[in-house]
């Protein structure tokens, strides 16, 4: 239904190679998230799959058939854009009906599919409004509605939540994940927000400068990041990195330990330091500790009730079995 494979795909803009040869397999029904810092080529990659950009070299296969030279419409993919790209002069109903109208679906069938999409997305009361009269979240749902009525082989989402406020974003995140469970259709989702990636994905593809740094399930990436970049990118707050003699003691160039795997004590521990800013989230507190001995600033997650104050002298101890070791090139040992 929706198996997509990229084989040695290259994209150049003029002389600039934004995506060096890249291989990727996306299984049917998977929720795949492309994540990376801005400018890493994740949106370009999505547009290549959509057919909105032409590949410079390589092959794209959808369901085992070569789709490299197919027009976007022929790939049976639906895309939700960052700006939603709703048609402003059409009502919600007409927006959702547009792909069906273009496909020549008969009127009764159109009505049936619109009704079911509207019901699924809570849009029934808004069908006769125009996009300009809707809120951001509702527009987002219309854009998704327009995508699902086509019953595509796969959905492509291009940073769909970045224009919503924080509360709506959490809500839509759940709705999209729920939609994926209900439809069981392949979804490819582009974001720069690692929280979205971790919470929604079956499989995360971490990209940097067009190169796939690591592919894996959220917990795989969390437990065994293959390099420093992935280690630093996945997880919030960021992993603490230590070089020098502490790293050498573990036969590594750099060691990394996540804030939640460091113990903070007021009496004794491996590293000494002074408390800087504490961020109280209620359930947890993130304590930023300025360590002694040139190790720099370290972040520690402690219990929300723990009593620490700016300027307190504290001691940190990493959990030995949760230490990640990296060589000079930043690769995992």
């Amino acid at each position, binding site marked *: 239904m929706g198996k997509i494979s990229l084989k040695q795909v290259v994209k150049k803009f003029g002389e600039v190679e934004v995506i060096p040869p890249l291989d990727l397999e996306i299984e049917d029904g998977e929720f795949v998230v492309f994540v990376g810092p801005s400018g890493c080529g994740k949106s370009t990659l999505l547009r290549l799959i*959509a057919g*909105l950009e032409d590949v410079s070299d390589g092959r794209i296969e959808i369901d085992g058939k070569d789709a490299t030279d197919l*027009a*976007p*419409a022929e790939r049976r*993919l*639906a*895309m939700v*854009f*960052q*700006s939603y*790209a*709703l*048609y402003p*002069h*059409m009502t919600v109903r007409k927006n959702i009906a*547009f*792909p069906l109208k*273009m*496909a020549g679906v008969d009127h009764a069938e159109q009505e049936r599919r619109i009704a079911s999409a509207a019901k699924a997305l809570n849009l029934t009361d808004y069908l006769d409004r125009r996009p300009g009269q809707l809120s951001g979240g509702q527009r987002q749902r219309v854009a998704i509605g*327009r995508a699902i009525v*086509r019953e595509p082989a796969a959905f492509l989402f291009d940073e769909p939540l970045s224009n919503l406020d924080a509360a709506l974003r959490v809500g839509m995140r759940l709705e999209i994940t729920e939609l994926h469970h209900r439809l069981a259709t392949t979804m490819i989702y582009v974001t720069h927000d690692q929280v979205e990636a971790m919470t929604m994905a079956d499989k995360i593809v971490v990209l940097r400068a067009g190169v796939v740094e690591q592919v894996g399930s959220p917990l795989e990436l969390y437990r065994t990041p293959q390099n420093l970049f992935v280690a630093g990118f996945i997880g919030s707050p960021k992993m603490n990195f230590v070089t020098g003699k502490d790293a050498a003691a573990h036969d590594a160039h750099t060691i990394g330990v996540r804030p939640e795997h460091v113990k903070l004590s007021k009496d004794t521990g491996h590293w000494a330091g002074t408390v800087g800013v504490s961020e109280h989230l209620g359930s947890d507190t993130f304590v930023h500790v300025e360590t002694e001995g040139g190790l720099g600033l370290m972040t520690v997650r402690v219990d929300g009730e723990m009593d620490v104050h700016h300027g307190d002298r504290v001691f940190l101890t990493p959990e030995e079995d949760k230490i990640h070791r990296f060589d000079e090139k930043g690769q995992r040992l």
Partner: protein
Amino acid sequence: MATQHSRAAARLMISPAVILLFLWMAVPLGMTIYFSFLNYNLLIPSAHNFIGLQNYDFFVTDPAFVTALVNTLVLVLGVLVITTVGGVLMALLLDRPMWGQGIVRILVIAPFFVMPTVSALVWKNMFMNPVNGIFAWVFHLLGIQPFDFLAQAPLFSIIMIVSWEWLPFAALILLTALQSLDSEQIEAAEMDGASAFSRFIYITVPHLTRSITVVILIQTIFLLSIFAEIYVTTNGGPGNASTNIPFMIYSQSLLQFDVGGGSAGGIIAVILANIVAIFLMRMIGKNLEA
């Protein structure tokens, strides 16, 4: 209180400009209406006595009047159709990335900067002249009898000249509208399976409607009063085949020295313009609402 005072002050401050503008418009209009009721001919220097609606009667029952009215409407409509359709097509072409885009755009705008009398003369002498014109030369090359545009198809020729002048204006406004179209909308339509033609009909044209409305309204105002092009090329002829209402008013008041009749014609032209305006606003005015 403060706002009331400042409002009163503001009214006082802008009143000279408003009064001047109002007089500027009202005095000529009032005098035209006044003259239209007088027996006022420059060839008859005696008393200008009041003759009621006779000037209107005279103007409207003139056998040239209906022709002039029809010519005016055909001229306006013809130019509007050519410039809006042509303007959209031209804007689509200019929107394409191409080599020398800046220069091409300036060249396209150029006709709009040529004065009406000049461009009409250029068309008359350089293109449409049946002996020395470029069209005549082309016809010769093809072995066809040259066509005397201004004599055999005068109104059509004038429509062509005026369209040539106004096409750049339409193209320019529509080009800016085209550039403001969100490219993601076009891409979304592409993903939705719309062909290039469907994308144009369902996305681009609706996006352009507001600009097309502006183009039509502005052009109508100017096209109703086309005069120079006719004066320079056909002089309203042959016969009155290319006479429109403004030209008829001119011939009435300045060729026949009939101030009263000309004034009556002017008032009729004002009424005609208002009728056209009401029709236009009824038809397309709603496009301007946000």
